[in-house]
C-alpha cells in the first residue's frame, strides 16, 4: 500500500510534535523510523494508524484518509510499547478479538508464537510481566498480517534471545509475504540490517529518508591532516568535524574511493552512529 505524507503537522498545545513533514513510502518494505525521544515518531504512527487527527496536512493511504476509516484500519496494525490490550482480557480472548478484526489473521502463527514465548492462553493481560505483554504484542502484530504493520518500540522488557527470535520470525514472515513494516526502536544496531529504507526524524522534522544500503555506502568518516580533510570536504554535506593532535576526522556524505584518492583514511558509519550525529546537531548549527 502506498503511504503519502503531505505537510503533516501536529501541535499539542504550544508544542509542535510534527512540523510540516512530507514523504512517501511507495512499496512494501521494512522501514526503520528513527529519532530521539520526542522527535515525533509516535505521533506520526498514531496519525498513520488513524488513531488521532493531525493539526495540519494529511496522510493518504492508497489515496484515502485513515482516520475513522474501517476499510483502511483493518489493513493497519499498530503495536506500541505497552497498553496494547485491555487488562481484564485473557490472552485467548485478545487473539479472538484481533482475529475478527484483521481479515488476513493467521491463527496458526499466533498459536506458534504464544508457545514460542511461553505464554498461557488462559492468562489475563494484567497478570503478565512487561516482557510477556511485549511478547503478546509482537504475536498480535505478526499474526495480524496487516499490509501495514507498525512496531513502535514493541519489546520493552523482552530479553535478548526473545528479541532475536522476533527478528527471525518477522523476517520469515516478510519473506513469505511482503508487507509494509514500519519499525521504530532505539535498539538500532540490533535491527538495522533488517531495514531496507531508513527515515530519521528530529524535533518534528524529517532529516533523512534513504535506502539503508546507500547510507552504508555514502555516509563515511574520513581522517587525515586538517588540510587534506578540508580539501576533501569542500562542497560536500558535512555532518560533523572533530580534531585531535593535528588529525581531523569528519563525517560526511561522499564515496570511499574518492576519499582514498585524497589520501584519507576512510571508514563507514553504522546507521546507529549516523542517527546520533544527525540528531545531536545543535540548534542553529
Amino acid at each position, binding site marked *: 500500500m502506498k503511504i503519502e505524507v503531505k505537510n503533516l503537522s501536529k501541535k499539542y498545545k504550544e508544542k509542535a510534535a510534527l512540523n510540516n513533514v512530507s514523504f512517501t513510502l511507495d512499496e512494501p*518494505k*521494512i522501514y526503520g523510523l528513527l529519532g530521539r525521544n520526542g522527535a515525533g515518531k509516535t505521533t506520526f504512527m498514531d496519525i498513520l494508524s488513524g488513531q488521532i487527527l493531525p493539526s495540519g496536512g494529511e496522510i493518504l493511504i492508497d489515496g484515502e484518509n485513515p482516520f475513522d476509516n474501517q476499510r483502511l484500519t483493518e489493513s493497519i496494525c499498530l503495536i506500541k510499547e505497552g497498553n496494547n490490550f485491555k487488562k481484564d482480557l485473557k490472552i485467548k480472548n485478545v487473539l479472538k478479538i484481533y482475529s475478527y478484526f484483521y481479515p488476513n489473521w493467521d491463527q496458526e502463527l499466533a498459536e506458534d508464537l504464544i508457545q514460542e514465548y511461553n505464554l498461557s492462553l488462559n492468562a489475563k493481560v494484567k497478570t503478565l510481566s512487561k516482557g510477556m505483554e511485549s511478547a503478546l504484542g509482537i504475536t498480535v502484530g505478526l499474526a495480524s498480517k496487516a499490509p501495514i504493520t507498525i512496531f513502535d518500540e514493541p519489546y520493552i522488557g523482552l530479553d535478548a534471545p526473545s528479541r*532475536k527470535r522476533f*527478528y*527471525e520470525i518477522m*523476517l*520469515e514472515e*516478510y*519473506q513469505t509475504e511482503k508487507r509494509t513494516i514500519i519499525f521504530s526502536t532505539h535498539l538500532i*544496531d540490533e535491527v*538495522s*540490517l*533488517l*531495514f*531496507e529504507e531508513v527515515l530519521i526524524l528530529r524535533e518534528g522534522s524529517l532529516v533523512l529518508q534513504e535506502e*539503508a*544500503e546507500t547510507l*552504508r*555506502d555514502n555516509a563515511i568518516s574520513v581522517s587525515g591532516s586538517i588540510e587534506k580533510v578540508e580539501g576533501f570536504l569542500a562542497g560536500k554535506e558535512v555532518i560533523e568535524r572533530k580534531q585531535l593532535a593535528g588529525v581531523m576526522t569528519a563525517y560526511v556524505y561522499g564515496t570511499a574511493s574518492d576519499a582514498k584518492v585524497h589520501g584519507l583514511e576512510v*571508514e*563507514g*558509519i*553504522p*546507521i*546507529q*552512529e549516523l542517527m546520533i550525529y544527525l540528531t545531536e546537531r545543535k540548534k542553529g548549527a
Partner: protein
Amino acid sequence: MKNSLDDSKPIFLQIKEQLEDSIINETIKAEERVPSTNEFAAYYKINPATAAKGINELVAEGILFKRRGVGMFVTEDAQQILIEKRKKSFYENYMLPLKSEAEKLRISAMELIEMVEREDTSNED
C-alpha cells in the same frame, strides 16, 4: 561464511565478496549451487532485498546463473573471471597501502623486495 556483517559497509557488497572468496578458493565449485537470497537473509538476519542485490550483481557479471525453480549456480568460468578481476585491483588494494606504510617507516624499496622474497617460515613448525 563469516559470522556477522559490518553495518558500516554496504551489505550486498559483503555478501558478494564472500561468495567470490568461496568461489576463488573452491569452497564452492563450478556448477554447484550457492545459497539463495532467503537463505542468506535468514542466516545473517538481513533484508532479503539487500541479499538479492549482491546475488544479482554476480549474475550480471557472469559468475552465477539461474536454473529456474532450482536456484543459483556457479558458472564454468566464474573462478577465472574472479581471479582476473581481483588481480586488477590487487595493486590498488594491497600494494599501495603497503608502499605507503613502508614509506612512513622509511623502509627502502630494496628492503621491501627482500621481505617479499624472504621464505615464509611461519607455517613450518
